[in-house]
């Protein structure tokens, strides 16, 4: 059993606190992604789990063992680094087999384990090359191979795809997902890329400034963000956010634009309250180019400033009260800048946040 | 204070002639004399007098090099190799002089016979190579005598113990055999040693040479063939070996040269020390020596055949390439004049002029410095047995062959006979190569 438990873990660098009392339970064989903007403490947290950083407070357990003071080698983990951290003076085969050699495994077993890993990752041909002779994607694969030969209880990935080009990144994402199925180990994966987080994770841990903001499945985070930060961080394009004030049963967004408060949110706000109003581009569609016309819908006329055709859909840019918003047009036709269209806003998919704290009022 | 009184006594006892009779005022106006002089505290006092000569003659002296003895030797050899020998005056030493073949003029051609006769005959002989007088000696004559700690001879318990063990009375040693007995008797290593000797380079070979002669042998025969591996030579070397094996000398003695010996005796932890005149003042000066007040000076002991003293002296030479040899010779005469020697020997070094010897001994006897009188008397006596090393260019080279072999015997790597035979064989080859036979 390799569940990983963090209990009020702190990390100080001198006086600066990088991680603030994080608690987290990660189940056996779960794929957890730590995501957040750079400097949010996600890498530090991962490195504390790995044992590469000391823990300033709290406890970390792997399985049933508290590992706070254990050196990395006694934690039964393996790790894939951002820069791959391949040993430049060893061949691919030696890189893969290094940890087993250190564990004093017989040569024959090492060879078979290396072969197996090489096969899984398609590295058979490269086994005698040095890292300097490999391409970026091949290096990445070796780094992963090195992690899997040991069959550790926990895999740690520290932004493993950030040095790859876009196409390779997508490809490797799939492979990592497949790998998880195959090795059936716990995986803790750090990235700043929310797409990676969404596509890979069983559960996402979103961090900011050393705190956990929200933990949940990708859909939970997407559909029910706990605050403006989560809402804008997760999803692409980012959620549109407008300032508004509650006036009766309406939200006044600009001087001449007010929309109805969604019916299930009416009890949650008071008259005159300042709020932030959020909706995703998918939920603002030109008439006849949306998913459906049912449910609570507000209609707004907007002048399109820019159209970005993506093929199956087109992203439309417009302004509401000086704030740029994005809308999505399905089954697109060509739209010229300056054209005014009538848009439908799906109110039951909208989010309302407190203007001061940013916390969700209606998730 | 004492020093100045000695000088004034000296000046009153010696007829002070008008400054350098041979020099006429302004004789060398505008001449510049380049000189290479040996540097170091005890040598430099004399150089202060150079300005007097400059004033008197109108010449200028440009000291283009001032270095320690071995450095200046190296420099002069380099100059000979490069042909840059147009400077005029060089410091010289009796054991180095024969090496500089053709570099220096025969001073007999420039200095009157009367002047030469005023120097001690032995010194002039040692300055003469192949009939050429290569340098005029300055008041830096070196022969070693015996320095000892007096307190060792005033302790009655010690005297009794010694008599019981060796069968004769404990007194300042007069033979090398007694010296050895007493050195072994006094030694209490590592806190106190019976004696010490310079153990490397020319220093040990010189001392060995001296003892070979004292035992009735010699270093080279008349053909310049090595004969130091004779019985006398073996007895001489055995003396060094015995002292070393009995731990009567510091184990490090083989790495010592003169400065280490001086420092050792001044630390008050060495009973008997054969050393040079330059040390006398230093040893008895409470500022520099813990043995001060306890230092006795006696003539060096004798061997089974005779009493001998390996000696050397410093002097000044004039190069053949010098543009104005008359001026250069005039400066050399000035630096070795009676005046200059009186002044220089007042610092404790030994003169090389007979008149200055007499004046010094008389002044010391008349003065109130008993230690100076004692040491001067010892050196005067020691000087009588002084001999100089063979005046051949190869002398230095033979010492480089011989000293490691002597050390090998002392350390027990070889027997005395093996060591001397090996050394003699190598020296023989050298002499053959050099064309002596």
């Amino acid at each position: 059993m390799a569940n990983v438990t963090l209990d009020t873990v702190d990390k100080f660098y001198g006086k600066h606190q990088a991680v603030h009392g994080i608690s987290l339970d990660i189940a056996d064989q779960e794929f957890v992604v730590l995501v957040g903007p750079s400097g949010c403490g996600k890498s530090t947290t991962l490195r504390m789990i790995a044992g590469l950083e000391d823990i300033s407070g709290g406890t970390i357990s792997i399985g049933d063992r508290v590992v706070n003071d254990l050196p990395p080698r006694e934690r039964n983990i393996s790790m894939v680094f951002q820069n791959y951290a391949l040993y430049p003076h060893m061949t691919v085969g030696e890189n893969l087999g290094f940890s087993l050699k250190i564990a004093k495994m017989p040569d024959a077993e090492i060879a078979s384990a290396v072969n197996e890993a090489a096969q899984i990752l398609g590295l058979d041909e490269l086994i005698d090359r040095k890292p300097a002779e490999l391409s970026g994607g091949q290096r990445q694969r070796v780094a992963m191979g090195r992690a899997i030969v040991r069959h550790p209880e926990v895999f740690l990935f520290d932004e493993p795809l950030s040095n790859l080009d876009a196409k390779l990144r997508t490809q490797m994402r799939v492979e990592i997902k497949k790998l998880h199925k195959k090795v059936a180990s716990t995986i803790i994966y750090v990235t700043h890329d929310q797409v990676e987080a969404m596509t890979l994770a069983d559960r996402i841990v979103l961090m900011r400034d050393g705190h956990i903001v929200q933990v949940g499945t990708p859909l939970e985070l997407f559909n029910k963000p706990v605050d403006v930060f989560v809402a804008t961080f997760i999803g692409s394009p980012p959620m549109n956010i407008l300032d508004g004030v509650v006036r009766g049963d309406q939200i006044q967004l600009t001087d001449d634009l007010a929309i109805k408060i969604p019916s299930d949110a009416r009890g949650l706000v008071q008259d005159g309250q300042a709020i932030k109003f959020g909706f995703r581009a998918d939920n603002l569609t030109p008439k006849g180019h949306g998913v459906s016309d049912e449910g609570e819908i507000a209609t707004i006329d907007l002048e399109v400033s820019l159209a970005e055709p993506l093929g199956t859909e087109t992203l439309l840019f417009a302004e509401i009260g000086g704030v740029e918003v994005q809308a999505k047009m399905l089954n697109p036709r060509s739209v010229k800048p300056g054209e005014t269209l009538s848009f439908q806003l799906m109110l039951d998919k909208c989010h309302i946040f407190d203007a001061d704290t940013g916390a969700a009022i209606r998730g | 204070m004492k020093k100045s009184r000695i000088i004034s006594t000296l000046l009153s006892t010696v007829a002070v002639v008008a400054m350098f009779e041979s020099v006429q005022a302004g004789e060398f106006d505008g001449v510049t004399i380049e000189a290479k002089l040996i540097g170091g505290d005890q040598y430099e006092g004399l150089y202060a007098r150079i300005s007097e000569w400059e004033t008197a003659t109108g010449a200028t002296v440009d000291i283009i090099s001032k270095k320690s003895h071995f450095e200046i030797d190296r420099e002069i050899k380099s100059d000979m190799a490069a042909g840059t020998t147009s400077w005029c005056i060089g410091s010289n030493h009796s054991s180095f002089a024969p090496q500089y073949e053709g570099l220096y003029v025969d001073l007999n051609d420039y200095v009157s016979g009367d002047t030469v006769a005023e120097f001690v005959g032995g010194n002039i002989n040692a300055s003469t190579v192949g009939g050429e007088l290569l340098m005029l000696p300055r008041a830096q004559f070196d022969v070693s005598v015996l320095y000892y700690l007096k307190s060792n001879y005033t302790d009655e318990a010690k005297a009794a113990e010694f008599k019981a063990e060796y069968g004769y009375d404990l007194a300042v040693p007069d033979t090398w055999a007694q010296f050895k007995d007493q050195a072994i008797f006094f030694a209490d290593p590592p806190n106190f040693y019976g004696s010490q000797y310079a153990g490397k380079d020319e220093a040990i070979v010189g001392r060995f040479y001296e003892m070979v002669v004292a035992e009735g042998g010699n270093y080279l025969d008349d053909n310049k063939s090595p004969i130091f591996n004779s019985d006398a030579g073996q007895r001489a070397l055995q003396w060094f070996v015995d002292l070393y094996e009995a731990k009567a000398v510091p184990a490090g003695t083989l790495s010592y040269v003169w400065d280490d010996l001086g420092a050792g005796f001044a630390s008050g932890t060495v009973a008997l020390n054969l050393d040079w005149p330059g040390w006398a003042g230093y040893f008895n000066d409470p500022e520099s020596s813990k043995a001060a007040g306890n230092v006795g000076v006696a003539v060096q002991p004798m061997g089974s055949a005779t009493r001998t003293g390996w000696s050397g002296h410093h002097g000044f030479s004039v190069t053949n390439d010098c543009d104005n040899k008359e001026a250069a010779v005039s400066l050399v005469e000035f630096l070795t004049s009676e005046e200059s020697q009186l002044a220089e020997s007042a610092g404790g070094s030994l003169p090389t002029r007979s008149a200055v010897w007499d004046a010094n001994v008389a002044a010391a006897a008349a003065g109130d410095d008993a230690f100076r009188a004692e040491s001067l008397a010892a050196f005067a006596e020691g000087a009588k047995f002084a001999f100089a090393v063979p005046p051949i260019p190869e002398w230095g080279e033979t010492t480089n062959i011989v000293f490691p072999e002597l050390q090998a015997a002392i350390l027990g790597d070889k027997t005395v006979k093996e060591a001397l035979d090996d050394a003699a064989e190598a020296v023989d080859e050298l002499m053959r190569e050099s064309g002596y036979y």
Partner: protein
Amino acid sequence: MTRRRLPEWFLLLLPAIIVIAAVVLIPLIFSFYSSFTPYKLTRPSTLWKWVGTYNYEKILSDVKFWAAFGRTILFLTIALNLELMLGLGIALLVNKVTWGQRGIRTMLMFPMMFSPILVGFQFKFIFNDNIGLVNNIIQSVGFADVALPWLVDGKLAMFSILFAEIWMSTSVFAILILAGLFAIPRDPLEAAKVDGCTPWQSFRHITLPFLMPFIFIAMTIRSLDVARAYDIVQIMTGGGPARRTELLWTLMSRTGYVDARMGLANAMGYVSILLSILFTIYFFHKLSAARAELGMTG
């Protein structure tokens, strides 16, 4: 019409080539020539007498020369290896220091600021058997009747000059290796930790291979100017006693200057230069190999 011009790289190298030719090459040719003559400093005319390989034959059949030759190789081997090990150890110690490293690094370079000749005098006094610091300490801590003859005993004398040489030169290794430690990327080290390496294993399998180029640089630099040890040895023991610490350099300088037999000394010089060149090329070769190993060529 096009004028032939010297290539730019050559113009850039020219000053270096000229200076070195003037200061090193010409004297070298001179001394090479003189090694075939019975050249004696005090008899300049001997320079024109050709004796062929007489000097070389004399040297090569001379037991003392071969003894000095062997001793020099031994001295170099021991000194370089010990300096390397100690330098490595010191660099690792200093690398771990988190506070005041700047000061410690300067202290580390302290011996590099000492002129070799000064180091010679310094250790001559420190190892003096009678009034030297080391024996004084030994006697003061209770071994009152011990006076070790540091500069005389065959083994101790070699030890003493080695100690002085190592004291003076270990810094160079330590500094270079420290520079190497600073340059090691952190990732592979962390990867090794996670891969289950003990600190020793990390060092052995990761740190050391990374340091190898630095180690060979240090070796190359040191083998280039290890002859600086001449000053130290000359002053401390002069090759003695009984030739127990005689090295090529002391033998050479005594033959050349004191005995004034420069032709013979230059012949020795050439044999010793060959030795330095072999050491240097060997280490340079190793350096290139180590660089290639880490993929650093380019």
